[in-house]
């Protein structure tokens, strides 16, 4: 054993004691450790080392008595080239002879070992085993195995050993342990030695290539090692071996293994220190790869051998719900930019990035300081977020990214030769060339950066992303990878991943199959080319024609290659064509045949166009000749083709563009990759530049903030998730928090209100919902909310609940600044509150008396008088007003007092009289729903005289109930988030106090961080109240009945009226007449605080049970009440 060990380990180094051996062994382990320590992994090389460890189990196999046989077995059953390596080392059958080969491999490792061994050698012989281990371990601490080893030799090092040993052992052991057992079982020296080579090889030596990588990372260690190794290894090997072996035998199973490895290696080492090369991997089938045409990415430029392309990022532009004038301005600006690029070849690429759901979840979580505590047995906050993320992923939202490449330079032979030359030295294009290009490129910055495209230079990372996405066309990107936010990806990593993507196709096939070798993902891609196009009316009637595909729910890629021809080129091109047509006409004439009429028509058209070109602006004359392709992907061939079919259908039906599905798909797919050649010259489209501008692939429809709850997705021209944080306007945009919901009955207002209330409550917002009709009360029955919610049914409440005086809170001095100005503000606020109370009380009184009486002039005077008498404080009551009226000398006053007392006989009216009960609305409940179940709401279109007494009472109740709902929000701290949802707000219209209420709400919303949601059936109510400027968020649901209401709603959205958008409102949530099931979703047009308007499809189905609880259909309500057995309800989106 000793002999074997000595020869192998030293690689010709004689003087290494056993202790050294141990060290060396440790070394390998240390290296492993280094590889495992994430902090130390600085280069890919480390990773490689880590990989090598895996095969360790091999040693076990070798241990058996018959090493040779074992080794053979190993080789046989594992394909990995690395294992081959080990096998070679381990060939125990003829340890020495075989080892010769292995020894060479192992030598590299040896050098490391020697340093430690050299010093410790003398003393180590006996303590060797333990000390050696330990020394190795110390290195692990710092990741510098070398130093510890040296120390190991010295006493000091020994002392360290114990600590370190403990730490490291666990890590090292696992691989080795198998060996020890085997070693013990067959302690024979031969096995030991044999082992060595095998084990060592796996550990760190296996491949010479691996070594260098390892060393590089640990500079300090490397230096020491490198110096030491040559001298010491030999010595160590001879001396150490014995020691090692002993140790192994003695007891430490783990240790045993190590020694063996060394022994095995030693015999060989002495012979030659040649480098080990990883064996070439050979696969049975062909494994060809082709380099991309792009050879270098420098900043935003890409270089191919012949051309240079400058890449720009085109930000998304809003398209939907913009006035046509604005759109036209945008298009003409873009076409001017294209015209400015005349003479260049453009590559316009649109790719996608999966929506970063995790990022969003993190954002919302950080903005949620105190989510609602979890209720056991229900979905907690974390699960809630997970469900939302799952939903996001399932719906497959993708964000578009548009890149524009301008190929602008034909490289000279000298340049590309220089690059080739420099590449061999690890440098790319020459500095001079790049500097020169840098100046030329500035002209594009100027052209593209202006209004229109507003392009900015891409970064190298984004180009990498684009390249990866283009090679792996339509495949899912590496998980957790995003080009913008993820810093973990090093430069070039992404490109390296293109190696995994294999491409298959069938002859004359209609798809290309892409397979990711690492993940096993399989994608079938069909590339469609834009064929014949009919005239389009882009802003008025049609969508941008390369944005249109985003209606479909799966992500697609676009590649457009166009040559922009300036006026000269395009005219020449056209003239040539015209001459051909004329000559054909002449031919027909010569032959005495009637020329087809189309020739004359085309010739005339060519003449007109030619005239435009020669006399018009550059925009009119510039032409874009090129190829437009759309790639559709699918998991299976059938899916892919089905999607392609649907896309073709959509385009031919809606845009009258025929998408063609040509053969030669692999070439077409390759065309998507920047720098690659154009697949073929078929389907070239020749168009004026404005038509190219109207392709507008960068159009998008984002709406909402990206930090709120997921409430659905946009449903217009593309699909994006919509998030809404109702406190975003106040906290970030410093706007009011008034949000208005307008829709016809059945448009989904209440459900949306309830869903938003629920989501906000989950985030720990104090939510108060006023729902006169009552279905939202069922929200409080949801298991996760039940402990934190309460329902206040006004119809069953105590006297004084709605006492008008106490509904308006008295401002607190603490709410205002200190000093004299603060005092003044406070005083003003107090007197305002008083004035508002008086106004409210007057209005309530007017509502309580019959309309005939209210209409008399004296009534208002008397009420005003009485209200003036009563101090306008919170403590006053309506009874005070009545008694005040009764004390008047005037008969009319007494009569009014009696009338009020008459109404007070009705149980509901008693709510207005008396003092409010204490603690009616505590601030504790996260969700409070105020209902007025059983109350009959009057129809506002009917004169008040015809209302029943009950209906008449509903009006003041609603007024006061609104105030009550808001009143609660003034209880807590000003900065805490609060949300009030008020349904049926249209009853506020027509009363002074109503307007003052909404204005106050909007004004206070910022100060109190109060999000106020106001739902109404008629936008006029809001417009009539003239609080439009204070509205930050608007939802408009289906309005089909009344065109006037629709245009009012559009005004609320600030969308141009009479531009055809009324029809859009009417078509919202349109039911499919052929289906007998209920409509599963609701759509709204939403305007967010930043003024973006989009059609939104509300979808909160990811919250388990929410829709069931929000279902307001009669059947559902009955089911909820237990009248009916629970019927499984179809999912209802909002």
């Amino acid at each position, binding site marked *: 054993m000793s002999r074997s060990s000595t020869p192998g380990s030293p690689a010709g180094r004689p003087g290494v004691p056993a202790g050294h051996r141990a060290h060396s062994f440790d070394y390998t382990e240390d290296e492993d450790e280094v590889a495992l320590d994430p902090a130390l992994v600085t280069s890919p090389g480390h990773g490689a080392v880590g990989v090598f460890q895996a095969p360790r189990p091999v040693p076990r196999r070798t241990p058996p008595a018959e090493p040779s046989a074992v080794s053979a077995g190993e080789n046989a059953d594992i394909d990995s080239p690395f294992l081959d390596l080990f096998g070679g080392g381990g060939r125990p059958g003829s340890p020495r002879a075989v080892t010769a080969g292995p020894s060479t491999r192992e030598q590299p490792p040896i050098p490391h070992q020697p340093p430690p061994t050299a010093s410790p050698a003398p003393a180590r012989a006996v303590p060797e085993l333990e000390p050696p281990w330990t020394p190795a371990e110390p290195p692990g601490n710092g990741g510098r195995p070398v130093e510890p080893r040296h120390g190991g030799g010295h006493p000091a090092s020994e002392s360290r050993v114990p600590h370190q040993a403990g730490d490291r052992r666990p890590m090292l052991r696992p691989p080795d342990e198998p060996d020890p057992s085997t070693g013990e079982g067959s302690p024979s020296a031969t096995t030991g030695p044999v082992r060595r080579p095998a084990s060592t090889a796996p550990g760190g030596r296996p491949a010479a290539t691996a070594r260098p990588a390892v060393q590089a990372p640990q500079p300090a260690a490397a230096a020491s090692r490198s110096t030491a190794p040559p001298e010491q290894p030999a010595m160590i090997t001879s001396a150490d071996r014995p020691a090692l072996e002993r140790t192994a035998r003695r007891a430490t199973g783990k240790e045993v293994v190590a020694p063996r490895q060394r022994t095995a290696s030693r015999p060989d080492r002495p012979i030659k220190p040649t480098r080990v090369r990883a064996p070439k991997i050979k696969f049975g*089938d*062909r494994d*060809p*790869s*082709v*380099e*991309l045409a792009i*050879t*270098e990415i*420098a*900043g935003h*430029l890409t270089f191919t051998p012949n051309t240079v392309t400058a890449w720009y990022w085109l930000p998304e532009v809003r398209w939907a719900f913009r006035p046509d004038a604005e759109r036209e301005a945008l*298009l003409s600006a873009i076409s001017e930019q294209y015209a400015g690029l005349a003479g260049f070849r453009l590559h316009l690429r649109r790719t996608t990035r999966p929506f970063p759901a995790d990022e969003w979840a993190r954002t919302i979580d950080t903005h949620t300081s105190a989510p609602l505590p979890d209720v056991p047995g229900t979905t907690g906050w974390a699960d809630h977020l997970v469900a939302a993320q799952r939903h996001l992923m399932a719906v497959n939202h993708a964000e578009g990214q548009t890149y524009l490449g301008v190929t602008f330079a034909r490289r000279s032979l000298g340049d590309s030769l220089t690059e080739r030359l420099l*590449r061999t030295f690890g440098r790319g294009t020459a500095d001079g060339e*790049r*500097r020169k290009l840098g100046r030329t490129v500035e002209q594009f910055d100027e052209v593209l950066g202006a209004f229109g495209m507003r392009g900015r230079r891409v970064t*190298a990372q984004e180009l*990498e992303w684009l*390249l990866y996405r283009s*090679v792996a066309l339509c495949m899912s990107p590496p998980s957790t990878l995003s080009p913008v936010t993820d810093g973990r990806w090093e*430069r*070039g990593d992404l*490109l390296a991943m*293109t*190696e995994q*993507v294999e*491409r298959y*196709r069938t*002859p*004359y096939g209609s798809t290309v*199959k892409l397979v990711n070798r690492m993940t096993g993902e399989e994608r079938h891609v069909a590339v469609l080319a834009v064929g014949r*196009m*009919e*005239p*389009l*009316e*882009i802003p008025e009637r049609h969508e941008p024609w390369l944005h249109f595909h985003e209606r479909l729910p799966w992500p697609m890629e676009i590649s457009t290659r166009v040559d922009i021809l300036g006026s000269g080129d395009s005219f020449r091109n*056209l003239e040539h*064509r015209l001459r*051909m047509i004329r000559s*054909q006409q002449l*031919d027909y004439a*010569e032959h005495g045949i009637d020329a087809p009429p*189309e020739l004359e028509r085309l010739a005339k*058209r060519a003449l007109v*166009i030619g005239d435009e070109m020669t006399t018009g602006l550059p925009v009119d004359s510039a032409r874009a000749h090129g190829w437009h392709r759309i790639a559709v992907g699918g998991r299976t061939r059938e899916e892919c083709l089905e999607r392609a079919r649907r896309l073709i259908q959509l385009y031919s039906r809606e845009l009258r563009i025929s998408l063609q599905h*040509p053969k*030669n798909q*692999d*070439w077409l797919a*390759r065309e998507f*990759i920047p720098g*690659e050649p154009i697949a073929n*010259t*078929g389907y070239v489209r*020749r*168009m*004026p530049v*404005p038509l190219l501008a*109207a392709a507008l692939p960068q159009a998008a429809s984002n709406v909402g903030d990206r930090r709120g709850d997921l409430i659905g997705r946009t449903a217009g021209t593309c699909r994006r998730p919509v998030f809404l944080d109702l406190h975003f306007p106040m906290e970030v945009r410093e706007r009011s928090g008034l949000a208005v919901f307008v829709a016809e009955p059945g448009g989904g207002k209440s459900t949306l209100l309830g869903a938003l209330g629920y989501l906000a409550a989950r985030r720990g917002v104090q939510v108060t919902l006023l729902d006169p009709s009552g279905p939202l009360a069922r929200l409080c029955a949801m298991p996760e909310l039940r402990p934190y919610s309460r329902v206040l049914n006004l119809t069953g409440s105590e006297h004084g609940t709605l006492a008008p005086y106490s509904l308006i809170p008295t401002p607190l001095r603490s709410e205002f600044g200190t000093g004299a100005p603060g005092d003044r503000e406070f005083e003003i606020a107090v007197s305002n509150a008083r004035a508002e109370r008086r106004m409210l009380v007057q209005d309530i009184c007017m509502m309580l008396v019959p309309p005939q009486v209210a209409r008399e002039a004296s009534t208002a005077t008397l009420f005003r008088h009485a209200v003036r008498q009563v101090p306008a404080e919170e403590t006053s009551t309506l009874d005070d007003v009545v008694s005040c009226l009764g004390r008047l000398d005037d008969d009319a006053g007494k009569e009014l007092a009696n009338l009020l007392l008459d109404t007070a006989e009705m149980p509901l009216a008693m709510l207005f009289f008396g003092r409010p009960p204490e603690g009616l609305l505590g601030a504790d409940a996260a969700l409070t729903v105020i209902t007025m179940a059983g109350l009959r709401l009057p129809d506002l279109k009917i004169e008040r005289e015809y209302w029943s007494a009950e209906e008449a009472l509903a009006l003041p109740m609603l007024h006061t109930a609104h105030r009550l709902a808001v009143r609660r929000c003034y209880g807590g701290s000003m900065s805490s988030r609060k949300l009030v949802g008020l349904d049926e707000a249209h009853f506020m219209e027509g009363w002074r106090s109503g307007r003052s209420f909404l204005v106050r709400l909007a004004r206070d919303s910022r100060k109190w961080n109060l999000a106020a949601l106001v739902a109404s059936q008629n936008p006029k109510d809001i417009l009539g109240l003239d609080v439009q400027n204070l509205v930050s968020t608007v939802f408009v649901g289906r309005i089909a009945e009344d065109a006037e209401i629709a245009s009012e709603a559009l005004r609320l959205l600030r969308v141009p009226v009479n531009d055809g958008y009324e029809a859009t409102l009417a078509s919202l949530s349109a039911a499919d007449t052929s289906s007998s099931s209920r409509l599963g979703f609701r759509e709204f047009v939403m305007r967010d605080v930043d003024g973006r308007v989009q059609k939104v499809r509300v979808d909160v189905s990811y919250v388990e049970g929410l829709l069931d609880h929000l279902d307001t259909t009669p059947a559902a309500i009955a089911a909820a009440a237990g009248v009916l057995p629970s019927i499984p309800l179809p999912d209802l989106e909002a």
Partner: protein
Amino acid sequence: MRLRTDDDIYRARLVYLGPPGYTLPVHLPYAQYGLFLLLVPLYMFIHWLFTLTVELFPAWEIALAIVTTSFIFRHVDPDRPARVVIRTALTDWRRTREPAVEQRDPRLVGSRIRIREELA
């Protein structure tokens, strides 16, 4: 804005009516004659490879060239010039010789691309 392509101008059908004074009974696009004229010598060459003789009147070649031309032009339209059709046929044809139904194409590998964060 009414936007339309210029494609129709390029879609005009240009046919050869015949030499001056004589109108051919069939009017075929110029490209078709061109292709025919290319194919005849090609077939003659192939024939020569087999027989090492050149026939005075290459009847077979002409017949084959006519058939081939008409076959190719069946797939030609204004959007798909003959060049593209031939090229597609040839590129895909090349692959069909492989026995496997599905053929792996070379991987396109971008790992050797050099990257600089900044241009200069």
